[in-house]
């Protein structure tokens, strides 16, 4: 106990506090988020009352914009926890002060994503059925456990970080949380990876691709929330922290591009997948545009240049810009995975030209509808509300992240001081 305290003291004593923002500003922000949340509830009620025909979803595109939002948030949730993991599990002192916000953000994003998924169900009133009837061969059923477990584990992990007397157990909890989050994202990716009949999905690479995506999206959101919270509460963030986080973001962006490249190259090699690859990479219209311009250029190459080029690296402005671009590119990527993967028709009769009144052999059309977008934005707003209230009432944020306040030498914790 005392050895652990000595160790902490040797690194740097970190002081956390609730954010102090003007109550008018707090309530304005909370009211804006509340409007989005209430709109989402109205959208969900509208969809459930009339049936899903009022959305852009159909028997061809069975998962639509709500799923894009939900998957993005759930994937980002597990990634947002990485900052905490780097601090406690991998013992990097620089990341220690960032850990609490990381845990809060992870839970908030997951709750936001799950609420969207539940409200989009055909029968959300049967949530209790989903909680009491399990088919353990279904990766979906597994994910219900993984998501609920994630929230419990991260809550405990946060408590161990925040309760000084329990700090010594934080590393063990952090390790459990880190392993759990890898399994969780593997499960989310496998929702697609296990779909044997869909050419755009059926691949084991979906799991590591989703893990890489989670690292990137989660860190981008983390950077934005960290800077916004610090600016809102007039706390300094030094360039040492931002330089580290930006460079890490660059590595994660590269990882996403790498897995994306492997995914498409492997598919291109198999002649049978030539059709779906041509659709996404060449003649898919909006999907092709979203892939190349959205994911690769805006969400990949430009932010990588921003964070790695010595002239631009490390400044808050560039970190914000890079993070925003990663989020835009990430949405584009998830949209292409979810929607384009369904828009390309199932191949019931390989090598044949096919047509029917049920859109066999045809590229399915889809346009996001207002209720879907409203529901998705509501999930984002709910995550925002959880973070806002969390920061206001509990000590998640360090008083300062200025260069002088954090460990300037950035040495790894090796055990004894």
């Amino acid at each position, binding site marked *: 106990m005392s050895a652990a305290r000595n160790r902490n003291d040797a690194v740097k004593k970190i002081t956390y506090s609730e954010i102090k923002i003007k109550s008018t500003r707090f309530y304005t922000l909370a009211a804006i988020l509340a409007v989005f949340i209430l709109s989402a509830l109205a959208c969900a009620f509208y969809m459930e009352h009339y049936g899903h*025909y009022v959305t852009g979803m159909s028997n061809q595109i069975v998962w639509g914009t709500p799923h894009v939002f939900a998957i993005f948030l759930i994937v980002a949730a597990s990634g947002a926890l990485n900052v905490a993991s780097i601090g406690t599990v991998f013992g990097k002192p620089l990341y220690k002060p960032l850990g609490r916000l990381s845990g809060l953000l992870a839970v908030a994003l997951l709750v936001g994503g799950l609420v969207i998924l539940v409200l989009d*169900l*055909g*029968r959300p009133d049967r949530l209790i*059925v989903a909680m009491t009837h399990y088919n353990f061969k279904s990766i979906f059923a597994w994910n219900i456990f993984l998501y609920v477990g994630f929230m419990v584990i991260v809550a405990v992990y946060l408590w161990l970080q925040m309760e000084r007397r329990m700090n010594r157990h934080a590393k063990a909890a952090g390790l459990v949380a880190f392993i759990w989050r890898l399994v969780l994202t593997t499960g989310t990716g496998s929702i697609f990876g*296990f779909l044997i*009949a869909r050419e755009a999905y059926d691949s084991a690479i979906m799991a590591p691709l989703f893990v890489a995506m989670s690292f990137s999206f989660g860190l981008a959101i983390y950077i934005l929330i960290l800077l916004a919270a610090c600016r809102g509460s007039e706390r300094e963030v030094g360039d040492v922290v931002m330089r580290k986080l930006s460079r890490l973001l660059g590595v994660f962006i590269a990882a996403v591009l790498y897995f994306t490249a492997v995914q498409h190259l492997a598919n291109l090699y198999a002649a049978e997948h030539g059709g779906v690859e041509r659709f996404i990479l060449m003649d898919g219209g909006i999907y092709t545009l979203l892939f190349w311009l959205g994911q690769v250029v805006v969400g990949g190459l430009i932010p990588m240049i921003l964070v790695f080029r010595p002239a631009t690296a490390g400044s808050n402005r560039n970190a914000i810009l890079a993070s925003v671009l990663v989020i835009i590119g990430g949405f584009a990527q998830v949209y292409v995975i979810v929607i384009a993967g369904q828009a390309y028709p199932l191949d019931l009769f390989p090598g044949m030209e096919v047509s*029917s009144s*049920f859109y066999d052999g045809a590229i399915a059309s889809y346009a996001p509808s207002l209720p879907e977008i409203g529901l998705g934005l509501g999930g984002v707003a709910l995550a925002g509300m959880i973070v806002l209230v969390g920061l206001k009432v509990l000590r998640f944020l360090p008083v300062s992240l200025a260069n002088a306040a954090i460990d300037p030498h950035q040495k790894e914790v090796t055990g004894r001081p």
Partner: protein
Amino acid sequence: MSMSSDTKDRKTNATPGFDPARRSFLSAVAAAAGVALAPGVMLYGISKSSSVSAKALDAEASGSVRWGMLIDLGRCDSGCDDCVSACARENGLRGFGRPETDAQWIRKVEIKNPQTGNSKSLPVMCQHCEDPPCVDVCPTGASFKRADGIVLVNKHTCIGCRYCMMACPYKARSFVHEVLDDQKPHAPRGKGTVESCTLCVHRIDADRQPACVEACSDTGGGAMLFGDLNDPDSEISKRVAMYASQQLRADLGLNPGIRYRNL
């Protein structure tokens, strides 16, 4: 029944001491109850023995049976959709003029070989796989396979997540996108749940053929043959043994119960 247990309770709770008048009164009440209940019991017995259903409602499906279908494309005409309209009539399916969201349990698919120009027409519905992906992925177990090979959706536990629709290689399932009314009692359907061909399970349990098969033989080309693939003496078993037949996407190894001839 409840009367007699009530009687017993009263006896055990009674204060010690014998009262012949009370006992005889209770006996008379019990006898009267018996006389009143007996005709009901009799009627219940009669109704049970004279049931029109070949299979009692609570009887389990037999695992020794594997229901299947053989569809001969040589007899399936491109312009004919009698099977589709029979299915809609039988199961109370009707469109709302929105083809992208309207449910289709069975559809006619036109296929053409671009190399040779040869074209065919065939009905496609739930293929009632031996290893159905929809059943594997369903989180609540609402998608299930009966012992006799029929793949169904439990309308009470389907939460409408549509993962089964993502998993089905045959695009066999529809999501109910609308408020429905006037459903058929034997084909329960409801907004917000997923549905597909039931192989007319209500007819099969009453020893009848699926509606599409019946319509095809009555007014169509007689292309559809329904029967037990496990029974070597059934017509369908003899035909699949005699002629080459194919399953759709046989490469996936799902062993569908629907087979096609002359594909």
